[in-house]
């Protein structure tokens, strides 16, 4: 072996004396062409739909979902295949993606997502990889076919035209708004492991002791006693409460709030005259004079309605509280900033007062994908940082 290598090396070092220059050049030229052609053909084979769906994980999951969308079948018959969107066109990025595909080869061999359940569990993570890629390059793969300059505004609906013209002005990344255009959105996209995931994690490790104040980050049911059997209302996200007892499976909390002294008094508000929701209680509890401690009434001049302070003790499940508002508001602020700035720069929190925010917020909800808890938390964030509570207002 060593002798053979040595001979080869010695021969390579020297000019060819027994083979003509013409033969050497021609041979090298032709074999170069054959190699490059072969290399690229092999590379392009991995860029075809047939190749992608040769793995059952792709064929049985995302490929099926694609077939329900406009990118599969539409009036013009122009369709997109897997590589059109998922393989970068630029050669350098394409080669990098091919090397990254070693991760997918590993997955195929070791069955990382080889069942429907495993795939669904990872769907959000995989989707987020792609969304990050589209966000970074401004949805370049979409724009390879969909050119803003070629869009015919007259053929669009009024709603579409308004949005798309703005997007055109900004050369906006298509994925900012059109997530889920080709495959199903993750079910828990904005719940659970989605936007509030970090807060769930923090809440599961908060040390809770009696006598201290805490904050909940989700809308949670409240119960009459420690067995958590009789639900008696809901505590709104981002509310400040005091824990008064800790048992194995639950916490007793004290909610100190305001309510209108007219009607059943089921709704608890954070502050006098402010439509900042703290809790909704059942009628029975709200009218239970023994459990509800109330103060004298005070009239709100704006509405003429009498308000009173109301304090009540209820029970909640564990792992639902945070020790302070730092992470709570910083997560809410991040959600607000990223979700509410895709079409226009978001208003400053203190731009409106607390009672104006609910109307503004609800008018915008159809433009984002928030689940119930996220909606509640972001609204609470906006209200508690509104001009009523902030010096920086105009």
């Amino acid at each position, binding site marked *: 072996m060593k002798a053979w290598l040595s001979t080869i090396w010695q021969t390579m070092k020297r000019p060819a004396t027994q083979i003509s220059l013409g033969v050497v050049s021609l041979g090298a030229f032709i074999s170069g062409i054959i190699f490059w052609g072969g290399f690229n053909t092999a590379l392009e084979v991995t860029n075809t739909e047939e190749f992608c769906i040769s793995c059952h994980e792709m064929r049985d999951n995302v490929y099926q979902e694609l077939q329900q969308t406009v990118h599969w079948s539409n009036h013009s018959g122009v369709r997109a295949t897997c590589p059109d969107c998922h393989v970068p066109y630029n050669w350098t990025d394409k*080669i990098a993606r091919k090397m990254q595909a070693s991760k997918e080869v590993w997955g195929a061999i070791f069955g990382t997502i080889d069942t429907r359940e495993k795939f669904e569990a990872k769907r959000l993570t995989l989707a987020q990889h792609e969304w990050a890629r589209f966000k*970074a390059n401004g949805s370049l793969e979409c724009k390879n076919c969909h050119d803003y300059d070629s869009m015919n505004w007259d053929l669009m609906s009024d709603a579409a035209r308004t949005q798309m013209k703005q997007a055109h002005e900004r050369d906006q990344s298509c994925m900012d708004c059109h997530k889920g255009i080709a495959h199903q959105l993750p079910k828990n996209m904005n719940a659970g492991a989605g936007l509030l995931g970090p807060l769930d994690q923090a809440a599961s490790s908060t040390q809770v002791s009696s006598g201290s104040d805490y904050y909940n980050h989700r809308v949670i049911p409240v119960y009459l006693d420690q067995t958590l059997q009789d639900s008696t209302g809901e505590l709104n996200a981002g509310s400040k409460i005091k824990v008064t007892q800790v048992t194995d499976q639950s916490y007793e909390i004290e909610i100190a709030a305001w309510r209108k002294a007219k009607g059943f008094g089921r709704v608890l508000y954070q502050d006098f005259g402010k439509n900042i929701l703290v809790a909704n209680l059942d009628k029975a509890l709200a009218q239970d004079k023994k459990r509800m401690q109330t103060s004298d009434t005070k009239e709100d001049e704006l509405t003429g309605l009498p308000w009173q302070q109301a304090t009540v003790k209820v029970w909640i499940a564990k792992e639902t509280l945070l020790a302070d508002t730092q992470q709570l508001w910083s997560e809410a602020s991040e959600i607000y900033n990223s979700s509410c700035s895709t079409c226009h720069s978001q208003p400053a929190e203190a731009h409106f007062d607390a009672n104006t925010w609910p109307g503004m917020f609800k008018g915008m909800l159809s433009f984002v994908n928030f689940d119930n808890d996220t909606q509640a938390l972001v609204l609470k964030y906006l209200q508690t940082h509104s001009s009523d509570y902030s010096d920086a207002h105009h």
Partner: protein
Amino acid sequence: MSYNTSSSGNDVPAEEEKRQQWHAFLFIIIALFPILSVAIVGGYGLIIWISQMIFGPPGIS
């Protein structure tokens, strides 16, 4: 017999030298350079991939 001497004094007969050179030529164009190309391009791709993990996905170009 016709010997060929090269600068490092490797004395082989012409037929042997011819055999060696064809051998080396074919080895280079069929095995060595193709494998080297795949390795270099693959390595290049790997470096880009690692850098994308550090600096994020490719931006707007």
